[in-house]
């Protein structure tokens, strides 16, 4: 793998000979227009030159917001530039997992960066396996949109990565739905910690419906209060 400091060989379409992602040059995961904006930006030219997986961490911990492009001239965010740098570097999977889990404990933007990279490059079942634990992480993230900054959370961001088609100025490649993978036996159905509560709530609703059909008002009242009580219990717990 001939790694050049300014990644000029990744962007050269004639003979890319580096590691492939799904059979393609990983730089093509980002669209041409966005790619051009990234490589023309000041941040890329000054800060992303000659980075490797370790020095990229220094840059990543300085991130203060996520986002794609902003402004009228479609300026890329440092987040996007670093993501593109990761795509040109193509580090090993366990490095990325380290970023995600260990580094991410302390720096949330590093975690977001790793999650974005995972969504673009890993296999579908691995994507689900690695990103679903992040749905429990509820830290705040600052997101830079075209004209303003907004507040979002880590679990919302990961949910967007898993369900939407575009995020951060990139078209995310089509992820087969979880159902398909479950049918193919590659994944197990998702267990959420709130699943139990949700089931409990559903049961209470069913009980309430059954009582309605019987037409016993007192039982209705009782079941309602009991269901309310159980909800408050679960809230406290």
């Amino acid at each position: 793998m001939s790694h050049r400091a300014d990644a000029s060989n990744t962007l050269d379409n004639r003979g890319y000979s580096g590691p492939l992602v799904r059979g393609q040059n990983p730089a093509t995961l980002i669209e041409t227009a966005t790619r051009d904006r990234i490589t023309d930006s000041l941040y890329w030219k000054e800060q992303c030159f000659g980075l490797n997986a370790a020095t990229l961490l220094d840059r990543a911990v300085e991130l203060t917001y996520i986002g794609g492009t902003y402004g009228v001239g479609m300026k890329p965010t440092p987040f996007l530039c670093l993501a593109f740098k990761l795509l040109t570097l193509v580090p090993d999977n366990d490095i990325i997992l380290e970023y995600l889990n260990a580094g991410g404990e302390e720096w949330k933007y590093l975690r977001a960066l790793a999650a974005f990279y995972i969504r673009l490059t890993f296999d579908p079942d691995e994507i689900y396996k690695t990103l679903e634990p992040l749905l429990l992480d509820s830290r705040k993230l600052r997101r830079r949109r075209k004209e303003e900054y907004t507040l979002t959370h880590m679990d919302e961001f990961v949910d967007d990565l898993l369900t939407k088609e575009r995020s951060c100025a990139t078209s995310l490649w089509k992820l087969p739905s979880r159902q398909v993978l479950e049918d193919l036996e590659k994944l197990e159905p998702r267990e959420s910690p709130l699943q139990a509560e949700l089931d409990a709530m559903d049961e209470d609703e069913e009980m309430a419906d059954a009582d309605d059909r019987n037409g016993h008002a007192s039982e209705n009242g009782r079941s309602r209060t009991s269901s309310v009580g159980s909800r408050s219990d679960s809230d406290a717990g």
Partner: protein
Amino acid sequence: MPPPIPAHQKRFTANPTRPARYRPGKAVPEDESDENLEDEEEEEVSQPVQPQRRLQAPPAGPTRPQAEDEEEEDDEEGFVTEDEDDADGGAPLPKPAAKPVAQTARTLQPSAQTSATPVIPEQKQDGHEDEDESAGSEEEEEESEEGSEEEGSTSEEDEAPQRRFQRPTFIKKTERKPTSASNADVSESATPAPEIASSHHNEDIAARRLREAESLIKTTIEKDTAARLAGRKDWDDDDDLPPEALVDDTDGLDPEAEHSAWRLRELHRLKRDREAMIAREKELEEIERRRNLTVEEREAEDKEYIAKQKEEREEGRAKSAYLSKYHHKGAFFMDDEESARLAKRDLIGAKFADDVDKSTLPEYMRIRDMTKLGKKGRTRYTDLKGQDTGRFGDEVKRWRGSGYNDRNDGQRDDIRGVDDRFLPDNDRERGGPQITFTFAAETEKALFQLKVSIKVEVEVEIPSTQV
């Protein structure tokens, strides 16, 4: 004797004479009005240049009248401004901004000299650079720097009233040497001496202000780079708002609220997943069920479904007015909420408040598109029925044996437009006498019998007996 004809009017018409045509090479006749215009334009030119001028050592006011005295000299070379004329080293050189202005000022003068003028300022600059002190050349560079910065220096304000565009004056070659030594000699009047002092003084002020401005720029740039290095300001950002000020992303401000917000989101996600699963299962069920039906049943269901759809669509669609224009909703942008709401609008039944019912208009104005009213060659094409020149469906009526006819009457030729007298007997109005004859032949063998019956309606008026 006819009235005397005015001298220059050789024509006999009362029309005003046209202005003389311009022919190249011929002297342009100058009127007095033209000369007045010239002066006005010169003054105008001097006004706008005044705010543009920056940091030139302004010549003191008293030199202006002197300048105007020398205006009328017109040798071929040696146009200078008073500054260069009188002041010693460090006299500001004509700026690039001033050059085009200077040229426009001079275009009003005979054109022969304009070719020389672009050369002159450069000569002057070269001449000056040799003798100038370092401060002068510094000034030049700084001037060009400053010139690019249009805003921000408050140092200019004091000098604005003093700086005025000095009309370039011509100095003879012999008098042209602008060295400090010769300046001391060229003291024809008292004014050069105080000029020198004041210009020195002004130059000091100018230089000082330049330096202040420079330092200001430097500090701003340093602040910028420091902010960028500290990661607060982004690399290409022009505004100074740090992201932290706008949106706060510190965690742990209110753990319970955050946790409950997270629970809410998680529950929404679970609900969404569950609903997707239910929808999917339903669809699978439906597919299974249809597979088990026979072909006819399937078709019957399809027809039902289509009919229901059509009905829904039609009932939602209001009846359009007579001869109203049809507006199509558009086939794009259906998925936005806003667009969906707009798509559901009732366009066909919509009425503009002032709409006139077209059936009340005269025939000529009954057009769908009112913009075509009154235009030549308009064909009033509304529908195919109007274009049909035949009798619509009449042939069907006329065919024998078709159930359309009145069975009693037998044949029917084209009887509609025909007058009553020429109608066949049966088709006359029913009120008239109807005669059918039957004959019984007595003398001859009755080969056939014709029956004759006379039905006569008689109206009898019985005058009522009046009592």
